[in-house]
């Protein structure tokens, strides 16, 4: 049973410029007892403000909003990357983020080596990865290229590899920044099927996207972010009726 809860969560990014990040300023601030406090204070960007979400099994949440509205920050906060500066974060279940499908891909390693490496990074044991490798290899359709270094791949081929590994195992909570579109027309078709099967096995899906049609198709709740705050929450009428309890506290 997967659960993902944010309660009144705020995320602030300190912006360290060339000056304020330096040791000199920190030492000066300490030595002067904070009298130059204003110069030493680090400017902060409020990326998320007072977000409350309660997600559980079966929830398919779409996140929309303009550039810089906080979509990616919200996903990373849900993944446990950013610790809220205020508020509470609770997670139950394994989380897998397809935020960066190329994570851990070493250009000088062969396709097979990269499968092994990425498998370990996803928290699989070596033997689990070995068991999955034939599947991944077949699905990627890269054939003999898997024995070659990834640096010799085209961009599309490298993406196919990353995608095939990243979607090889189901997870309780799936976080995606944009629906992954990879490869040529033929591969896109089967990639779609695969992605849908991973999504259907996940307890919770959070998908950030700019495409209203995609969100309408995949999600049953929509959160609209604006300047780091929840502007609107609505259920998608066309979607199957499940619990829709994303509550904005503003």
């Amino acid at each position, binding site marked *: 049973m997967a659960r993902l809860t944010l309660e009144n969560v705020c995320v602030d*990014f*300190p912006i360290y410029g060339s000056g304020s*990040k*330096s*040791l*000199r300023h*920190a030492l000066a601030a300490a030595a002067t007892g904070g009298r130059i406090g204003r110069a030493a204070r680090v400017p902060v960007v409020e990326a998320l403000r007072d977000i409350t979400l309660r997600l559980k099994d079966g929830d398919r949440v779409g996140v929309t909003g303009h550039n810089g509205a906080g979509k990616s920050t919200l996903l*990373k906060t849900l*993944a*446990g*990357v*950013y*610790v*809220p500066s*205020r*508020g*509470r*974060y*609770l*997670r*139950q*279940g*394994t*989380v*897998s*983020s397809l*935020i960066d499908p190329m*994570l*851990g891909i*070493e250009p*000088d*390693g062969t396709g097979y*080596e990269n499968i092994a*490496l990425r498998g*370990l990074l*996803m*928290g*699989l044991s*070596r033997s689990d990865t070995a*068991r*999955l490798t034939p*599947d991944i290899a*077949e*699905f*990627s*359709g890269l*054939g003999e290229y898997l024995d070659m270094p990834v640096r010799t791949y085209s961009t599309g081929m490298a993406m196919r590899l990353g995608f095939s590994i990243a*979607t*090889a*195992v*189901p*997870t*309780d909570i799936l976080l995606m920044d944009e629906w992954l579109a990879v490869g040529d027309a*033929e*591969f896109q078709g*089967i990639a779609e*099927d*695969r992605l849908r*099967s*991973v999504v259907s096995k996940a307890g919770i899906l959070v998908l950030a996207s700019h495409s209203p049609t995609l969100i309408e198709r995949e999600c049953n709740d929509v959160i609209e972010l604006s300047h780091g705050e929840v502007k609107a929450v609505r259920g998608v009428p066309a979607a199957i009726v499940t619990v829709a309890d994303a509550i904005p506290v503003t």
Partner: protein
Amino acid sequence: MIPSATASAAPQSIRATLSVADVVTAGDHSAATALRTGLADWWSGTKNVELWLTLAWYEIVLRYRRSMLGPLWLTISMGLMLLGMGPLYATLFNVPQNKFFPHLTLGIIFWTFYSTSIIDGCNTFILSARYLKSAEFPLSIFVWRNLARNLIQSAHHFVLFFPVAWLCGVPVTPRLAFLIPGMVVALINLHAITITLGILCARFRDIGQIVASVLQLLMFLTPVFWFPESLPNRAHFILYNPLAQLIDILRLPLLGAAPASGTWWFLLYFTILNVVVAGGLYAFKRRQLIYWL
């Protein structure tokens, strides 16, 4: 070959398990909780030996993939340096070659081990930013990766000691056993220093530069090339640098001598200090680190 979508049917028993703990709460800032979760985080990374060892191994293998001799270059370049310096400095310092050469060999090998571990340690989290920004990884994974990579490199240097020891007739004595506690102390300290400097350097980018210049200076103040015995009495204080002591606990056992008890006491306090500082930073600053990368 046309791949089929059914290939995605992974066995249900295999699931991605990236999360550090099943229930994670943030926002509780009590010191006890921070220490407890910090320790849990450290341990969950530490026990994932497969991951950090593989990451370290690939770093070395992939770096040398396209060269013919591969990591053997590590051994060759170190060997050339020793061959060049050995005869020259033995003459300059007027010490018999078979006494000087093993001393110099181990001095340079262990100095390189410590100093590159420390310098790499400064960047360990900065260079892992891509990992840390896309999922929740225990920090200790990247500390161990750094240490494992440097140990593998150092092992490539260390093989040079065998011919040197044989040629110079270095005795094998029971004191060799001191190498074991020596290595434990060395690893604990390097681990702690990597945590401390890795976190501090992410926040203050100047510290990496400071560390590099201090180490450069320390190389000459540490008995890497010269013998501590040649110091006049009033200059003995310069041996109170942790690196001199850390080199001693590895070098002396291999040369058939026992490190002085003063060395062990000094390093005991140094280790405690190091672990306390690193533990504190790990527990209280670990979650903020991501905002500094």
